């Protein structure tokens, strides 16, 4: 279980999160919704250790993550697919994918995870030995998500995975992730611009507005609240 308690994050004078709290249950998908600049990216960057909060706590199964460096947080099984820019463009597709699972040092499992990923994303399989530099935007996004899955994480932080992806590819990715949630108990925090599609795959959701949580609860319930939809979700 991931617990975020009273998290306050500021970039100099700009306060991006004002005492945000949320709980993500194991083996579930929680959507994080909100307009541009609401603080969604800040939230996941703080969870994965890239940003130091001013106050508050982030706990994974009771273990405090604040003050741990990002590499150690990743080694606890938290994979973060950053918004855009996540691939190492100078390295090949294969090298990018291998990097996802290197910290596990389990070569056999790694090989298997790599094959699975190529099966899931055929466009990547054909470009295995090309640099990620040569990939299209959507292919890069596949690579970024695929690399996170190679790590076989227990918690997956997805920051707008739909960016640049065709609908078909997105449906495929989300299908795979759903399967991992039910089969392997994967826990997911999903940031999405498209609230409607996010709410359709998520179990729970929170809505951020200017760094505050303005709504949270089961995804279906949020989707049914007309006032909320109009005010914050735009559908």
């Amino acid at each position, binding site marked *: 279980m991931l617990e975020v308690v009273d998290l306050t994050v500021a970039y100099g004078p700009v306060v991006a999160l004002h005492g945000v709290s949320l709980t993500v249950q194991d083996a579930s998908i929680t959507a994080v919704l909100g307009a541009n600049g609401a603080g969604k990216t800040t939230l996941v960057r703080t969870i994965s250790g890239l940003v130091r909060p001013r106050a508050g706590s982030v706990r994974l199964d009771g273990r405090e993550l604040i003050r741990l460096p990002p*590499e150690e947080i990743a080694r606890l099984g938290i994979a973060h697919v*950053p918004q855009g820019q996540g*691939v190492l*463009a*100078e390295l090949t597709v294969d090298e990018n994918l291998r*990097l*996802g699972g*290197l*910290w596990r040092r389990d070569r056999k499992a790694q090989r298997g995870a790599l094959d699975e990923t190529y099966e899931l994303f055929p466009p990547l399989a054909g470009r295995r030995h090309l640099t990620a530099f040569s990939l299209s935007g959507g292919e890069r996004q596949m690579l970024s998500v695929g690399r996170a899955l190679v790590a076989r994480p227990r918690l997956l932080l997805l920051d707008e995975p739909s960016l640049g992806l065709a609908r078909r590819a997105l449906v495929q990715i989300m299908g795979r992730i759903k399967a991992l949630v039910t089969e392997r108990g994967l826990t997911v925090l999903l940031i999405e611009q498209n609230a409607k599609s996010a709410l359709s795959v998520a179990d729970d959701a929170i809505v951020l507005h200017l760094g505050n949580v303005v709504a949270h609860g089961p995804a279906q319930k949020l989707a049914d609240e007309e006032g909320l939809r109009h005010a914050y979700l735009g559908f």
Partner: protein
Amino acid sequence: MSRFFVLSLNGLTQGAIYAAMALALVMIWRATQVINFAQGAMAMFTTYLALFAIDHGVPYWLAFLVALSSGLILGAIVERVIVRPVESAPPLNVVILTLGLLLFLEALAPMLFGGQIRSFPPAFSIVGLHFGNSQVAFSPFDAFTLGSVLAVMVLLLVLFQKTDLGLRMRAAAFNPDVSRLLGIRVGRMLTLGWSLASLVGALAGVLIAPSLLLYPTFMDQVLVFGFTGAVLGGLDSAVGAVVGGLLMGFALSYVGGYLGSDLETVGALVILIAVLMVRPRGLFSRHRLRQA
């Protein structure tokens, strides 16, 4: 034997050493986007340590290992103590610190090892090989120089291209933040990168010391030649560094042979300026067609 041939052989051997120096600079440039101006001084220092060992009766090969291993350690210390604390500062701060380190080491060396010019023994004879009745301007030590630089380059190539550790090191150099998210201990990778670069520099030091003689500033010109080779090769390309270093070796050997050896440094400067004017990104730098 023709003069041109003799100069070419000499250029090849010298070039191998400049290539090692250039490679050391490029490794650090790629890992931390810093030109380590102390690279030469660090190599001078490790060469002195080897000579110190020899003075105390240590056999040559052991002293050779002393130079290389103290290079590894010195590189790690420099990264941890000097570079790490200013990691997030603008690169210029680090560059200024490496210049400070250069001055420090060149001041420290005469205090520890004495200021007089010393000779440094070669591993093998420096007398040209004989083929039948004719002698060529290529000695066993020249062969050793070429061979050991080549060996180190092949080992580095295998490390970086074929091993998981090398993959981690490259990732950490390209994008530290994303690498951290992948569980790579970036700090360790940078330390290791400085260590290995410093090892390559240390190798250049012991290889060139027999022909230059050893004194606290003896590596300064080697650094300049290596730096020019690195810029010629594009600064971010390991292959470029090697080719650039070799080209420098040939060019300076011809300049020295045909125009006079006191013109070598001027020659390097001319090459540096020419590269910066004609092709500032060097011969081998990766040209980015698309933005990442």
